[in-house]
């Protein structure tokens, strides 16, 4: 995979969300990036590990999660092509959660030292990455509201609509359908419910003619019902430089 392909989704996203300049894009494309292929369900970087590089998702889906001492896993976020889910490891040296793949992934690793040099050389890029980690935090706030306050069907719909909005920004939505490669168990871990409850919610949404979720793919059956259920306001994603 060429340097241009590795950073393609990232560049596309930063163009729309942060209005990055062509000159800054060139410096990102010129970064030395080590490309690795990962199978599904592999740890990229683990809780407690000292990270020395950041991981750019070129293709595939990852998730961040944390596991309690009792072994219960909470999925904290889902990540897609064009995102750098462990960008904070540049400043927070020891990981406080796990980052793992949900699907087979093409990942580009950028050494912390490279990013530090880039930030010093191009403060604009540093600001854009800073903004990116702030949006990351905004998404976590929304995730807390979602898991804490919405009933399970709305919770699932909200996670789906958010994912769709983000996939749109990197051109990965086909009409009324998009990928959400989570198993029933993982849906449960994301929403804080049991796998059986997750299964029931998925069935209910299909029976009600709102959305079909099958083999890691979401197909929207009724767009207005779907949006109404999700109670979604995209402001927190800050997908344009004006927001």
């Amino acid at each position, binding site marked *: 995979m060429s340097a241009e392909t590795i950073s393609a989704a990232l560049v596309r996203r930063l163009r729309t969300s942060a209005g990055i300049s062509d000159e800054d894009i060139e410096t990102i494309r010129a970064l030395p990036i080590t490309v690795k292929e990962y199978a599904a369900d592999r740890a990229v970087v683990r809780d407690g590990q000292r990270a020395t590089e950041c991981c750019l998702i070129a293709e595939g889906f990852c998730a961040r999660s944390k596991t309690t001492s009792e072994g219960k896993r909470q999925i904290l976020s889902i990540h897609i092509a064009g995102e750098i889910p462990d960008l904070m490891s540049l400043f927070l040296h020891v990981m406080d959660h796990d980052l793992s793949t949900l699907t087979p992934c093409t990942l580009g690793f950028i050494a912390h030292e490279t990013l530090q040099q880039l930030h010093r050389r191009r403060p604009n890029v540093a600001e854009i990455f800073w903004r990116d980690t702030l949006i990351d935090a905004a998404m976590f706030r929304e995730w807390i509201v979602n898991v804490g306050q919405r*009933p*399970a*069907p709305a919770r699932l719909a909200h996670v789906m609509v958010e994912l769709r909005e983000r996939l749109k920004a990197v051109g990965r939505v086909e009409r009324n359908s998009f990928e959400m490669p989570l198993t029933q168990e993982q849906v449960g871990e994301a929403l804080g*419910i*049991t*796998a*059986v*409850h997750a*299964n*029931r919610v998925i*069935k*209910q949404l299909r*029976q009600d003619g709102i959305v079909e979720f099958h083999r890691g793919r979401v197909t929207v059956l009724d767009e207005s019902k779907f949006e109404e259920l999700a109670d979604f306001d995209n402001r927190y994603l800050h997908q344009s430089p004006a927001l």
Partner: protein
Amino acid sequence: MPKFHFHIQENGRLIRDDEGQEFAGTDEVRKEAVATGASIARDAFISGSACRVIVDVREEEAPFLKVSITLDVEDSTES
């Protein structure tokens, strides 16, 4: 390990679990049934969509255990 099916009833509405899933032991099945019932009941009771939730667990076709949760509110101000 056989497959366990979790059929769920909310008031009259039944949602069948035809796929089922495997568990490490029967203790895990019981825990999953109770946690599922509690979590579904929470949503249903608060939204008012149902006041009775039943998780009917079957080992293949045979009844294995049943968790029933009923909402019972006594309003003392009503005559």
